[in-house]
């Protein structure tokens, strides 16, 4: 029998419908992979095997009757940031110890309504703050990819590192993820998977643990462009429970796949050519340009002069919003409580012990930039710069550009516990340099695997689209995938 875990979602959807195998068989194959690999990769923090089998059986009953939703019987992993009823939901933080919500996030509700099966909860950076999945209370996730001839453990990127690693190592067919500054696209690029952050407002944020509310968006990580289109179609919805959810019907994203890109105008922004950028990233970008040109797209040089200010503005806006959102963790309503001599000391002790170093750093920065006398100098200025960043994109669209092509990350995956990156927090932040502009402007962005580095590690290209034009990204992304092929790590685990 074929290895069921090697199937794409699109293939499994057909196989299940044709009764070539059952969802229970498919689910069991993934549970076996998880049990074999998780001790080494640490992608899952909770495995819900019993629940998965019950959901799979229910799907099989529907499939037997020729019924079922768009994802009927498809086993998925869920990032620990999404509230799942009665199941571990802690944003991989110590401060949410034992938290099991009595409710379900809108995104996961949509997935279960379409028939998907939950395999478990995935590791991530604490409160989605990180670019390496090393800030998790549950320890780092290990990238299934290694450099040629090396045994060194590499990071899968972050914050959705568990999601990306689980997909790459065939521990789920696809995974939910979230992206505040690059947390879907950077780990997708580091693991040879496809990740899309949709337009702000496309997926409901209800029931997703908040980090920076004006930037947070949920999206999928999957093996192929088509699979990510299938998942996004189910995840996205119009939700009255989220006032920033946009009143637009969710299109059939799959319909865009296979459409010609002939005549589409692809912008190449000069400002993404960063000083000190490795030659192989530049080469990858040039390859992407020629693939799209060969497919009939028109390549145009564009200028986005405020690009370099997106990351510094982000490191004011995101911590400011985080410091406010994370004020709720006080040891009273949920999670960890560390006693003190009075209520204030209880708050201070609880938050000192419950939050990790990176989270504390961002809360302090956020508290400082919002404190009396500094608001105008920092937060207000950053929001004005954000207007200029968005205007750069608006000008490109006004000039007829359909999508923008950039590298996804400034490098391939790096080592776990990299001394250089850990001694200077700003160096770690630079991982998001190509992705963060997209969050600041609320736009959709997709990372598609495009090649391997000299060391044999995956590298990705990013496509940025107009608001709510995710279909265009899937259309162009498929052209890159067709030209680049797909990438599978050599199995050394399990």
């Amino acid at each position: 029998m074929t290895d069921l875990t090697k199937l794409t979602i699109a293939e499994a959807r057909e196989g299940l419908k044709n009764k070539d195998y059952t969802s229970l068989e498919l689910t069991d194959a993934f549970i076996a992979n998880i049990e074999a690999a998780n001790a080494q990769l640490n992608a899952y923090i909770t495995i819900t095997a019993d629940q998965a089998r019950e959901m799979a059986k229910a799907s099989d009953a529907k499939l037997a009757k020729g019924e079922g939703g768009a994802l009927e019987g498809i086993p998925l992993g869920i990032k620990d940031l999404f509230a799942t009823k009665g199941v571990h939901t802690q944003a991989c933080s110590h401060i949410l110890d034992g938290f099991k919500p009595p409710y379900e996030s809108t995104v996961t509700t949509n997935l279960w309504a379409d028939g998907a099966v939950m395999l478990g909860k995935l590791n991530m950076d604490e409160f989605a703050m990180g670019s390496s999945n090393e800030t998790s209370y549950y320890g780092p996730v290990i990238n299934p990819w290694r450099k040629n001839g090396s045994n060194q453990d590499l990071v899968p990127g972050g914050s959705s590192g568990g999601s990306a690693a689980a997909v790459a190592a065939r521990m789920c067919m696809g995974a939910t993820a979230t992206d505040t500054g690059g947390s879907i696209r950077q780990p997708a690029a580091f693991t040879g998977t496809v990740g899309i952050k949709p337009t702000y407002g496309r997926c409901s944020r209800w029931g997703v643990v908040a980090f920076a509310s004006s930037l947070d968006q949920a999206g999928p990580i999957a093996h192929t462009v088509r699979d990510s289109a299938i998942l996004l179609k189910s995840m996205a919805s119009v939700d009255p429970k989220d006032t920033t959810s946009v009143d637009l019907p969710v299109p059939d994203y799959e319909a865009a796949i296979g459409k010609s890109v002939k005549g589409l105008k692809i912008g190449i922004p000069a400002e993404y050519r960063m000083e000190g950028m490795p030659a192989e990233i530049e080469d990858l970008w040039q390859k992407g340009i020629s693939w799209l040109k060969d497919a009939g797209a028109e390549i145009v040089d564009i200028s986005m002069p405020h690009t370099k200010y997106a990351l510094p503005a982000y490191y004011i806006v995101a911590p400011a919003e985080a410091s406010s959102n994370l004020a709720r963790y006080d040891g009273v309503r949920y999670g960890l409580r560390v006693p003190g001599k009075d209520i204030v000391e209880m708050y201070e002790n609880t938050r000192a012990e419950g939050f990790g170093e990176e989270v504390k750093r961002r809360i302090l920065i956020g508290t400082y930039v919002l404190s009396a006398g500094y608001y105008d100098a920092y937060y207000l200025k950053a929001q004005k710069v954000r207007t200029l960043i968005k205007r750069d994109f608006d000008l490109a669209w006004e000039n007829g550009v359909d999508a923008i092509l950039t590298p996804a990350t400034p490098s391939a995956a790096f080592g776990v516990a990299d001394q250089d990156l850990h001694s200077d927090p700003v160096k770690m932040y630079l991982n998001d340099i190509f992705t963060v502009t997209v969050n600041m402007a609320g736009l959709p962005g997709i990372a598609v695997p495009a090649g391997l580095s000299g060391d044999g590690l995956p590298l990705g290209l990013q496509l940025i689209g107009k608001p709510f034009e995710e279909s265009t990204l899937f259309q162009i992304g498929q052209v890159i995938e067709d030209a680049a092929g797909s990438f599978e790590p050599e199995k050394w685990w399990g």
Partner: protein
Amino acid sequence: MSVDIDTVKRVARLARIKVSEDDATRMTGELNAILGFVEQLDEVNIDGVEPLTSVVDQTMKKREDGVTDGNKAKDITLNAPASEDNFFMVPKVVE
């Protein structure tokens, strides 16, 4: 702008996070590195630029001011570290 150790302690107090002398010393350096990085924004001319308040061109949705949910006291206190009769328990705050 940069912060000194007293400012870090004051901000930590505002954020209700207990910090030791050593923590505060280390954090002072880290916070100054981040504040130094964001100083680049001073180069940008923001005269006459409005701050961005929403990335999506949509009027904020409003709902009717009616009760749509409730009677879930048990659910709400379910995850509390200490609760009694559907009330959250905290150390004494009023003498």
